[in-house]
Each structure stands twice: as structure tokens, then as C-alpha cells.
């Protein structure tokens, strides 16, 4: 029987001893929904890497408080000290998984450079005016024979774990780098050689499990997407199920041809749940994975059909590049970056998602209707949802070299951040035409925009113990 069908994690939480609300975050996903205020600030990665704009990437502070005079404006930018980073995914030093850690605050953002392997720590004590606190230089990372930092999660004891996609040369194998509470490199987290390829991961401590996915060697995906690499088997199609305490891979699941390039991994938020999803970008499927008792299983539960495009030679995949689960574990959202739609599925029965609604915005198939006269150069990509599940936001840049390949106009026009109003009761969404954050209009030139985070936790970073 599916444990996700009884999402009563309030009671479940009570049997986790030693819990009080002294640490950061919320005691349960339900508490996050009920106790959180609507988000007022978004932290968004802004990028110049790979363009001729002579400026470093930055952390953008976006005002998303509808009552503010600077609503939808980028009110502050924290510039990184170097160019060439490709700031990509980032995370907090603490989340709800650390709620037993007295005195720890959700205050520092750990922001890796995907191309440079440089890791930045930003202090957000002043939410509207964060400051760069310290930098780990690439050489310190290469010392552990790792490069290309990707997903950053805090782990329950106050440490920070970062998935690393390559070795010091940008080749395989990747691994995991651990930082200590002082944001210094603690070393390699796992015994080297557990995996070859790496990408995203999510852990569920109550079940002593972590699931990681696979992109490719940095040297393969950095320059752009080449079909020859797919044919040569240079792209991933496996999930790795880890023993979280032992830091060892217990099971590897080959997703086969339908699971090419499995990217974002999302468990349901309930700490009791052993269900999750992963989006396979190239084959454009969403897989449901779960603990089937003796072993973990993964099955494709959503298949996005490739579509013919006028003037293109081959049917175009949707390219599922990001997905997330609402805090109440009721809905799954994902983006088809090449097609141009954002989809919403009811996952009350996790193994049988039911399409609830979708929105077209940009992409190669979407209605090219501009929002507020602004042309949309890319497709929907990184998603973030409000904790109450009523506002879905997204940006349009995937990765600078891949953007240049599939949306060359984005380099000249920059990204946008868009928003949809979600009605969780009726399972519907509508594009908010009043909302547009334009990354094309910045002093140094048009920028790409990537991952989005809220100061008080969000649907893609909070984990419960």
C-alpha cells in the first residue's frame, strides 16, 4: 500500500524524538504550508558566462511582493569575484532537516560555479542585501579529484553535501564533496568509485536512503549537446540508490532507452514517503521510483511525445528539464523546455499521475504571444513553487552552451522569470500576465536566469528528518 496515500506526517513526526522548533525550518511539511508567509523575495541565479559580456555571474534578489513598489524588479545583485563560473544550482546551509540543530540558522547560500568549480558562500542575514562571505577556489576542489559542482543540500548534522559531476580533469567519475559548518572543504563524502556519472540527488533520512541521477562527464555536456555522444553512450540513464549512512550504492537501476538523461530527483516531502520522481530529459519521460520491499523500482509514468516541427528534420522531444512536488505532495509540476509547456499532474496516487493542467509559454511550440510585449526567447525551465502551492514561478535558461544551441536569441534578449497562479483545489493554473522579471534589461547587458530559491525554504530544497 502506498504510504503517500496517508500523508499524515504530523503524527509521523511526533515519533522522531528530541524534536523542538529550535533549529531552522519547519517541523513538518504541513507546518511549512501553514506557518509560512507568502514569499516576498526570490534569490535567482543570473549568468554572463560564455557570452562576450565582460561581467561575472551574480545572485539576483528579485522583489516578488505584490504590495512593494519594486515588485518584479531585480533590487540587488551580488556579483561573484570572478567571471566564468556558470552559477547554476545552489542551496542553503540548513533546511528543515536540521530542525534539531539548536542555534543553526538558514542563512547562508552555497553557490557553486558549474564550469569554474568555484564555490561561493553568501550571507543573507539582510535578505534584501545579501553579501558574499567566502569563496572556495577551484584548486581546493580539484585536490579531491572532483569538479563541476551541481546540487547543494544541507545534511542533517550541519554539513553541506554537493554532487560533483566530474573528476579534476572534467572526466568521469564524479562523486560528492562535503563542506563543514564553517564552509570549508571537509573532503570526499563517499568512498571514490561508487558511481561513474552523477547529477542530482535527494535523500530521505528516515529511510536511510539517497537517490542520485546521471547527466554525463563535464567534458561531454559542457560544450553543448551532441547526438554522437548519445550514440556513444556518453549520457546517463541510471539511478543509484544509496545507503545514506554508509555512503555506498546499494542498487543501480538502469532506466533503459526510456530513461535517457535522468536529471532532477524529487522525493515526496513527507519524511515517511518512499516515493519519488525523476525526469528523463532526452527521452522526455517522468519516472516514478519507490521502495518495493526487497528492492527499489522505477517505472515511466508520464511520457511526453516528441513532436514534428515545421522546418526541423526530426521530431523534437519535450526535454523534461525540471520537476518539483508541491509541499502537500499532491501535485507534480514539470517543464518541457524545448516544447514550451509547464505541466501540472495530480499525484494523489503516486504511481498513476493524472494530468491536471498545463500552460504554454515560449518554447518551440508554444503560442509565441509575448508577455507584456516581451518576446520569450527560451522555454520554461527551472521551477519553484510557493510553500502554500498557489504560485508557480519559472525561468528560461538551461545551460549557457545548450541555450546557444537551442535558443540562440536568448543570448541577446536575456531570460525572463514568469509566474502562474495555481488553484490547488481545482487542479488548474493560469499565467499571470502582470508578472514579468526581465533579465534582459540589466546594466551589464542581458543575463540568463536559472534556479530560484526562497529565504524560508522551498519545494526543491527542504527535507525532513
Amino acid at each position, binding site marked *: 500500500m502506498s504510504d503517500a496515500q496517508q500523508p499524515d506526517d504530523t503524527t509521523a513526526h511526533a515519533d522522531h524524538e528530541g524534536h523542538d522548533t529550535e533549529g531552522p525550518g519547519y517541523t513538518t511539511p504541513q507546518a511549512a504550508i501553514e506557518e509560512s508567509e507568502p514569499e516576498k523575495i526570490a534569490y535567482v541565479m543570473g549568468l554572463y558566462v*560564455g557570452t562576450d559580456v565582460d561581467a561575472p555571474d551574480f545572485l539576483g534578489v528579485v522583489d516578488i511582493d505584490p504590495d512593494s513598489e519594486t515588485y518584479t524588479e531585480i533590487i540587488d545583485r551580488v556579483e561573484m569575484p570572478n567571471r566564468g563560473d556558470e552559477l547554476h544550482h545552489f542551496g542553503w546551509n540548513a533546511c528543515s532537516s536540521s530542525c534539531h540543530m539548536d542555534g543553526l540558522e538558514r542563512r547562508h547560500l552555497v553557490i557553486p560555479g558549474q*564550469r*569554474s568549480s568555484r564555490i561561493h558562500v553568501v550571507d543573507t542575514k539582510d535578505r534584501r542585501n545579501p553579501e558574499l562571505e567566502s569563496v572556495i577556489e577551484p584548486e581546493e576542489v580539484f585536490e579531491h579529484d572532483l569538479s563541476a559542482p551541481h546540487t547543494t543540500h544541507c545534511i542533517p548534522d550541519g554539513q553541506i553535501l554537493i554532487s560533483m559531476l566530474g573528476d579534476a580533469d572534467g572526466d568521469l567519475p564524479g562523486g560528492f564533496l562535503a563542506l563543514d559548518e564553517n564552509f570549508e572543504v571537509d573532503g570526499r563524502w563517499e568512498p571514490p568509485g561508487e558511481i561513474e556519472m552523477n547529477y542530482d540527488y535527494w535523500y530521505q533520512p528516515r529511510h536511510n536512503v539517497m537517490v542520485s541521477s546521471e547527466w554525463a562527464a563535464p567534458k561531454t555536456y*559542457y560544450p*553543448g549537446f*551532441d547526438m554522437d555522444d548519445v550514440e556513444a553512450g556518453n549520457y546517463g540513464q541510471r539511478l543509484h540508490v544509496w545507503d545514506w549512512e554508509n555512503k555506498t550504492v546499494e542498487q543501480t537501476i538502469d532506466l533503459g532507452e526510456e530513461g535517457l538523461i535522468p536529471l532532477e530527483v524529487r522525493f515526496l516531502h513527507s519524511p515517511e514517503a518512499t516515493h519519488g520522481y525523476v525526469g528523463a530529459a532526452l527521452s522526455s519521460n517522468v519516472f516514478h521510483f519507490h521502495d518495493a520491499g526487497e528492492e527499489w523500482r522505477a517505472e515511466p509514468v508520464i511520457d511526453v511525445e516528441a513532436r514534428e516541427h515545421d522546418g526541423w528534420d526530426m521530431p523534437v522531444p519535450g526535454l523534461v528539464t525540471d520537476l518539483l512536488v508541491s509541499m502537500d505532495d499532491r501535485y507534480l509540476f514539470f517543464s518541457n523546455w524545448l516544447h514550451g509547456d509547464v505541466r501540472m499532474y495530480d499525484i494523489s496516487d503516486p504511481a498513476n499521475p493524472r494530468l491536471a493542467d498545463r500552460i504554454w509559454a515560449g518554447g518551440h511550440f508554444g503560442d509565441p504571444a509575448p508577455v507584456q510585449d516581451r518576446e520569450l526567447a527560451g522555454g520554461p525551465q527551472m521551477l519553484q513553487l510557493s510553500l502554500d502551492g498557489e504560485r508557480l514561478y519559472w525561468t528560461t535558461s538551461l545551460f549557457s552552451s545548450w541555450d*546557444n544551441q537551442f535558443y540562440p536569441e536568448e543570448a541577446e534578449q536575456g531570460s525572463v522569470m514568469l509566474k502562474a497562479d495555481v488553484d490547488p483545489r481545482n487542479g488548474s493554473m493560469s499565467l499571470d500576465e502582470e508578472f514579468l522579471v526581465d533579465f534582459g534589461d540589466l546594466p551589464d547587458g542581458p543575463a540568463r536566469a536559472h534556479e530560484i530559491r526562497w529565504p524560508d525554504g522551498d519545494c526543491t530544497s527542504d527535507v525532513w528528518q
Partner: protein
Amino acid sequence: MTSGSSAHDVILVWQDGQEGSDEREERLSVGEDEIVLTAAECAGVALPFGCRTGACATCTGKLLDGRIEHARPPRALKERHREAGYVLLCIAEPRSDCRIVVGSSVQAELVSNPWQ
């Protein structure tokens, strides 16, 4: 072995992609054991880069004239790219006077949209 101190004229050329459009050029003096990207930075000339280890191709240039040697294996380039004259400026050392097309548009030439 050549003397490490000999320097070469390296001319960097930016093209904006349109036929017959204006080009911008910069001339640098680069030692035999100096990396082109570093020499450009010292001269205050901004070139795109990312990994600085030869893995990401963000710094790709196209050699029009002259000889380059890579200080490390250029892992981001495939054989077809190397044969076509592409070089990675973060690990490139000149072995003669050179003329190199630079700028982000050169990287974008390496891979095209496979569905189009």
C-alpha cells in the same frame, strides 16, 4: 626545445557573425610558455572562459594562421573540431605568430541543433 622567452604576435579577431560586417582586432605579445587566455587577461582583453582546464570549450577560438600547442589535452574538443582548427585558449600556447577568431560565437559553432 625552443627558448621559453621568445614571444609571438597573437592577433585576436572578433566577428559578429554577419558576412562582411565589421571586425574588431587586438594584438597581443604572447610568450611561448604563456597561455593565450592569461596573456589576454593581463592585457585587459576580455575573452569568454569557464573551467580553465580544457574541459568546457567556453574559451574556444578558431586558428586562422599560425601554430598553437595545448599545454594539456584539449578534452572539450572532438577530433572533427581539432581538424577544423578549433583551439582552447585557456590551455593554448603559441608556437608562431597567430591569428585567432575569438568570442562566444566561436564556441556556439562547435555543436548545432541536432533536430533542425
